[in-house]
């Protein structure tokens, strides 16, 4: 009977690979590849840590090496049984995006737990924060951590940033998440992509991202950071991550040269990689004319000037103000000052910067400049249509009409963002967060920024990193927000929806209660 259902297998024969090769499942092969690459990077970080002298630190390196090796082996073996899917539906693309991130985070968390340094909640939190390029940390003092740990924290952010770019340019076009990256069915998107084939895209992303990392490494070296610090800082700068090797983020790297390098690096990391591709591939004019780039630069300049003028002080203070603005706007999250001590209006502005986020097409998080721009145009249209109800207008970007469903996607993404901030804030507050900190932490996590500014009343007014004091369940909530924010909300929800479809069907009686039709007297007139 079983043999009949698999006609291509030879009944009764010895081991036959075909028997195990199922139809090309969309998720399996990308997951296997993820396991391999994360495993290899983890193992390499472990090897980097083997040079540590003391036994406890050496332990970390060994743990990372073993976990990485096991993950890579499993991935390698697994990948032999599956093929790369030929075509993907948008649902599959979202399922891939979600499961890839979850897998990476789980592997990394296992490594952290195996090293014995972190508890389960802290390990999950640190992994999520690293791989989503957020930069909140559960380590009291990173300077005491082992080399392996520090290396992997930086490398995980770098890998997360790379994953975001690959997802943005390779997978996103499949479901039109960010309009500027959308390449319909085999045709170039409205404002250009890095190519129409995934392999081309991947090669170009790697080239740009890799060379940017190298440039940043050299720049940090020249600015006077040590070799290891330069390595870690360059990786976390280009990925808009925000992990550093010291407690208090960037505050202890108090050198003007290093901070200026970081400012430029963060600003570049927050800009679209497509812009740089155009700039280097001979269409510099197109890059220069990008409306999104202009909005981004304009936003940085305006808010930077406001912050510098309001805060005042000497050249150092001005630099720190600009640093903070660029850090929040690019969603990197390095801190050189405690922004909670700033005037409340600047805090409010920083809060908005976190919501707006970086350019789409970068590794940065947030709603993205392009979406905010579309949202404002959309609002203008809504207002105009109140006076001219019969008018038919199109939202335009880069002088081209934006499809209506893309506008709808963008509007509902912003809505979902708002819902998630609220739910996240309730979650964090319910598990013991302060009122204002829970809001800021929710936005910071959802936009993958990192810092949680503001004075924690529970700490008796002393400046304590708000996240460190949060309870384990609150950290779980924040980790969930980071993942949702990183994936752009939709993939996580659609994947969840696929997972919970049977449950949802069972809940139909509830929808029936809420949406019950009126039998008589007619429906409400609209």
């Amino acid at each position, binding site marked *: 009977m079983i043999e009949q259902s698999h006609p291509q297998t030879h009944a009764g024969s010895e081991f036959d690979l075909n028997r195990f090769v199922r139809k090309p499942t969309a998720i399996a092969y990308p997951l296997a590849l993820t396991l391999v690459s994360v495993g290899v990077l983890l193992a390499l970080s472990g090897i980097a840590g083997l040079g540590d002298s003391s036994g406890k630190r050496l332990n970390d390196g060994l743990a990372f090496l073993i976990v990485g090796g096991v993950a890579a082996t499993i991935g390698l073996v697994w990948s032999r049984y599956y093929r790369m899917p030929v075509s993907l539906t948008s649902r599959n693309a979202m399922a891939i995006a979600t499961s890839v991130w979850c897998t990476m985070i789980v592997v990394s968390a296992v490594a952290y737990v195996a090293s014995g340094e972190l508890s389960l909640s802290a390990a999950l939190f640190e992994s999520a924060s690293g791989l989503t390029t957020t930069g909140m940390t559960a380590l009291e003092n990173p300077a005491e951590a082992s080399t392996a740990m520090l290396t992997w924290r930086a490398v995980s952010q770098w890998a997360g940033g790379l994953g975001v770019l690959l997802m943005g340019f390779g997978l996103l076009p499949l479901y039109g998440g960010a309009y500027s990256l959308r390449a319909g069915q085999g045709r170039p998107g409205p404002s250009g992509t890095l190519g129409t084939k995934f392999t081309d895209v991947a090669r170009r992303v790697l080239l740009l991202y890799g060379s940017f990392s190298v440039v940043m490494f050299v720049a940090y070296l020249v600015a006077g950071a040590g070799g290891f610090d330069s390595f870690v800082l360059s990786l976390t700068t280009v990925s808009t991550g925000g992990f550093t090797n010291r407690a208090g983020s960037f505050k202890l790297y108090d050198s003007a040269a290093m901070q200026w390098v970081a400012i430029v690096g963060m600003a570049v990391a927050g800009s679209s990689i497509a812009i740089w591709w155009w700039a280097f591939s001979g269409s510099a004019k197109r890059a220069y004319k990008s409306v999104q780039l202009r909005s981004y630069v304009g936003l940085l300049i305006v808010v930077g000037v406001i912050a510098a003028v309001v805060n005042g002080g000497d050249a150092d203070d001005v630099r720190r103000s600009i640093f903070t603005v660029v850090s929040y706007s690019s969603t990197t999250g390095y801190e050189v000052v405690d922004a909670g001590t700033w005037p409340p209006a600047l805090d409010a*502005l920083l809060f908005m910067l976190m919501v707006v986020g970086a350019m789409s097409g970068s590794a940065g998080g947030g709603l993205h400049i392009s979406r905010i721009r579309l949202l404002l145009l959309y609002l203008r249209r809504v207002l105009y249509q109140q006076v001219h109800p019969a008018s038919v207008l199109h939202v335009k970007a880069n002088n081209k009409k934006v499809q209506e469903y893309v506008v709808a996607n963008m509007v509902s993404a912003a809505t979902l963002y708002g819902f998630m901030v609220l739910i996240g804030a309730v979650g964090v507050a319910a598990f013991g967060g302060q009122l204002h900190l*829970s809001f800021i932490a929710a936005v910071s996590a959802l936009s993958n920024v990192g810092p949680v500014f503001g004075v924690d009343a529970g700490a008796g007014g002393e400046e304590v990193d708000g996240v460190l004091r949060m309870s384990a369940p609150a950290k779980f909530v924040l980790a969930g927000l980071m993942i949702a924010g990183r994936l752009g909300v939709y993939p996580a929800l659609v994947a969840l*929806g696929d997972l919970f479809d049977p449950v949802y069907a069972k809940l139909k009686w509830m929808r029936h209660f809420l949406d019950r039709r009126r039998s008589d007297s007619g*429906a409400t007139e*609209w």
Partner: protein
Amino acid sequence: MDAALSRPPPLRLWGNGVVDTTTLKRSKLGRAGRTTWNIVNPGWDPRPTLTTSSQGGRFDSPLLHITGLALMWMAVAIAIAAMVEFAYGDPDGWALLASTGIFGGAGYVLMRATKIERLDTAQSFAVVGWTWVIICLAGAIPYILAGTFRHWDDAIFESVSGFSCTGSTVFFGYNDSIESQGHGILLYRQLTNWAGGMGIVLLAISVLPSLGRGGLGLIGAEAPGPSSDHLVPRLNEMAKRLWYVYVGFTAIMAVGYLGAGMGPFDAIAHSLATAATGGFSTRNSSIGSFDSIWIEAAACVGMIAGGMNFALHYRLARREFRAYDRDGETRVYLLGLLIGAAVIVSLLWFDSPLSLGESARAGIFNTIALGTSTGFGNATSAGSPGDFVTWIPAPQVIILAFFVVGGCSGSTSGGVKVVRIQVLWRYVHRVLQRIRHRNLVLPIKVNGGRIPDPLVEKVVGFMALYSVIVAVGIVVVTAMGADLMTAVGGVVGSMGNMGPALNQVGPTASFIDGFNRPARMVLALLMLIGRLEIFPMLLMLVAPRRIWRKVRPRRHI
């Protein structure tokens, strides 16, 4: 005159089903004693036809005409307040009487000097927006003449807070307590709440003969919520009936409060604020000063009813007892209040030192007071269980969510209204479903009726505008020196017409404690924007430009 001739002939259908929209205008150019109909507006011009108030004057200005009517109604209200002030022997009777004269005189002159000839969409936004601004500014005159406040802008704040049904107060900051004011002033304060609740423009047009389609635009621009429920075909009739329901509801509430143990003056004053879901009180600590569970229960019932669609109350009065059950929005609203109260009470009970009784009483009352955007408080003093700013953080976040949502459309409450949340949810749901099923066509249905896409766009755009204005408001208010969380609560609360807000401006505090003078003016502006639901307040600036100049339509945004 022949009755048949005073009415325009019916529209004729010309071949191919084309409707002739030629406007006919009555003129006396023909033979003496006979009315002739002249074609004055040939061609395709879909503008609504002429309407005129019976008392119309010379200048064509719907704005001033309706403002004049609204001022005259307010003159009646202030006259009542003046009589009460004299009857109780309180000192400010003459100030109120003088205000009556000012309101009545100005209103009468405006009304007699103007007429309504044309009323299109843009103008109806302008009418509603400017009328509200003028009334709110004029509403400060009684306070200023009576010398109630130290600054003129405090008088404006209290007036705006009253008319927009917000209920935030600047009393008991550096001023005297509310209790030390004269009864007339207090009654006037409650009456501003009451007049703003159902809408002063609605009140004004209830005495106009007919406004055609433009009148519907007026009601649409002023009434809370996106839907317009036609109770009866004629608009003035509809306005009148809504006001009858409103008066009846207020009377029932007054009897309820009397029965629960309030004095007659307090009962009437609080019933005015309850029906309007306004939240002004005659006491410093609001409902909490009575410290009676029966009064709180009566207030809860009244606030819930005030947050429901008044068209449903009208249907109830028409003995359609299942009207509430059939309305999906009402079901979601009640379910939301129930779940919210349950979560808040349990959080308070489990996570904070309050006992079950205290958390139930404080939690349920405040959920309802803020979930209906009324803003009464049951805190007996600062730090008592009802003072929600001293609660643990989690229920406060939930309360902030209630600040945004508010009550049902067609009610007197503030916020973005439950139905908008429903529409938004269906909209997001449609986008998500469309990702999974690429060619899906899914009409958005709420309450059994399909909502046309332009209206969905309007609702979604409204929500987005709302958040943008809140964000800008927070930046502006913090820039004026307010604390961040106080500003968030104050701005969201002002937009949602709540009353008390978070942190420094809780239910036992005055808005003077948390905000300086310019910041309070910004909040007052936000209250107006929130009460009129954004569009009139933004479009009243463009509409006059459109009337004066011929603006070419845009091709793209």
